[in-house]
């Protein structure tokens, strides 16, 4: 790749770096406030309606912040929904605007086509298998991998950007009675309000799973160098520092 040959070219463009960290901030805020809101009713249902008088699909075995929910625990946790709801929606705006800027920019710049869509040679089950076996053998990443993504990474990033994020936004919007009055199609297509809420929970879980695997892989590849690349844009500070890192 051209970028690998030229050390002056940043590993990640400024736009990718800024949107990456903004997304992380917004996602963590959404995750924490989402859990707080969940605690006020840790029961899930399927269909249009559901409440403590109806049978749940499943429950999360934790105490609730409402004494009206039968959890089996005597403890009633403090109500955090007020600020959690304010912050959840403010962070949702941040992540949606950041995501729109990012998607438009990667379409415009060719980053999507060049670096994220799997290359022609990668579009085989064999390529997947090779990447996965090298992960399972916990083989250290090759030098070239500091400058490009393998097919597993590309698939994971594309799924997050074009499947999980749109889904988490749509299932979240389907919980808004005002949005549903204007666009009833979304909540109806998802199977009703409670189905949308349950799906919102599972898609958020999938995003959390991605975050955990992503961080684990960054640690595997060399936490300092990879995080430095996402902050400063430079993949390798100098050849010497890279050598020191490999020894530690």
């Amino acid at each position: 790749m051209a970028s690998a040959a030229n050390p002056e070219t940043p590993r990640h463009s400024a736009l990718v770096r800024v949107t990456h960290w903004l997304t992380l901030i917004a996602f963590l805020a959404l995750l924490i406030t989402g859990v707080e809101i969940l605690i006020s009713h840790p029961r899930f249902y399927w269909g249009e309606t559901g409440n403590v008088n109806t049978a749940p699909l499943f429950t999360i075995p934790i105490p609730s912040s409402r004494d009206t929910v039968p959890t089996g625990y005597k403890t009633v946790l403090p109500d955090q929904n007020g600020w959690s709801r304010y912050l959840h929606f403010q962070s949702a705006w941040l992540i949606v605007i950041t995501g729109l800027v990012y998607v438009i920019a990667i379409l415009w710049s060719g980053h999507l086509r060049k670096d994220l869509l799997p290359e022609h040679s990668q579009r085989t089950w064999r390529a997947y298998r090779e990447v996965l076996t090298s992960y399972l053998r916990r083989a250290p990443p090759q030098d070239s991998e500091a400058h490009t993504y393998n097919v597993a990474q590309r698939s994971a990033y594309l799924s997050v950007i074009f499947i999980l994020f749109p889904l988490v936004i749509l299932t979240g919007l389907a919980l808004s009675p005002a949005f549903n009055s204007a666009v009833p199609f979304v909540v109806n297509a998802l199977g009703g309000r409670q189905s949308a809420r349950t799906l919102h929970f599972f898609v958020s879980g999938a995003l959390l799973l991605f975050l955990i695997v992503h961080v684990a892989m960054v640690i595997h590849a060399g936490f300092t160098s990879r995080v430095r690349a996402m902050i400063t844009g430079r993949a390798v500070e100098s050849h010497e520092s890279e050598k020191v890192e490999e020894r530690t």
Partner: protein
Amino acid sequence: MKPITRRNLIRTGVIAATGAAGLTAAARIAQRYGLIPPDHGGLYGPGETLTYASQRLLTKHSLAREFPRHMISKSPFANPTIPPGSAPKPHQVTGFSDWRLQVNGMVAHPASFSLSDLKALPFRSQITEVACEEGWSYIAEWIGTPLTEVLNAVGVLPQARYVVYNSIQQDWWDSIDMADALHPQTFLAWGMNDGDLPPSFGGPLRMRIPRQLGYKSVKFITCLTVTDSMKHFGKGLGSAAPEGGYAWYAGI
């Protein structure tokens, strides 16, 4: 890093000035068209304003989903807002015959309605979902007098921007903008599922606003005040909810 040149400085300055002017213009337009919520200040003000403004533009004339009769919940949940049965009890003994709804503020003819006065106005029913901010929900048929019928009866002055509503709970009051106040599905509900509205669900009289979450549908309504500004109500944030940390606008 690119060196700081005069050209870059000028360009950054022009972009910043354009941005600031654009934001000021946007704020002025938003203010004029009523797109700024009373609780727009503070840390969460930007998000809250974006949500309210965009939903107001999107939902101006939209109707909340109505459901077929067979989807009415068999066992709706009566969220206890007060110790069950305590507050409306004195009125319950008399069959709510002494229940009054005061309507005042920016109206041509301030008035006081009994329940039978309200029921004498044209009434309607809707089968809509109550969705609580906690996550649970149920569907019921609501029978009531559309708020517009009451507002028409007293004659709302043209400068009106909000309708404030109070309940028998002194510390629990709320308000809606005129888009929701004049909305055909905003009811003063006195009936539920073909019967009288039970006190556990807010009887004899509750607000019903199906395009917003359940906490806007305040129970035990006793007074409506039409106003052009929320400044002098409570802390000026639009309702009791923001004073307790919850958003005034509950469309999401």
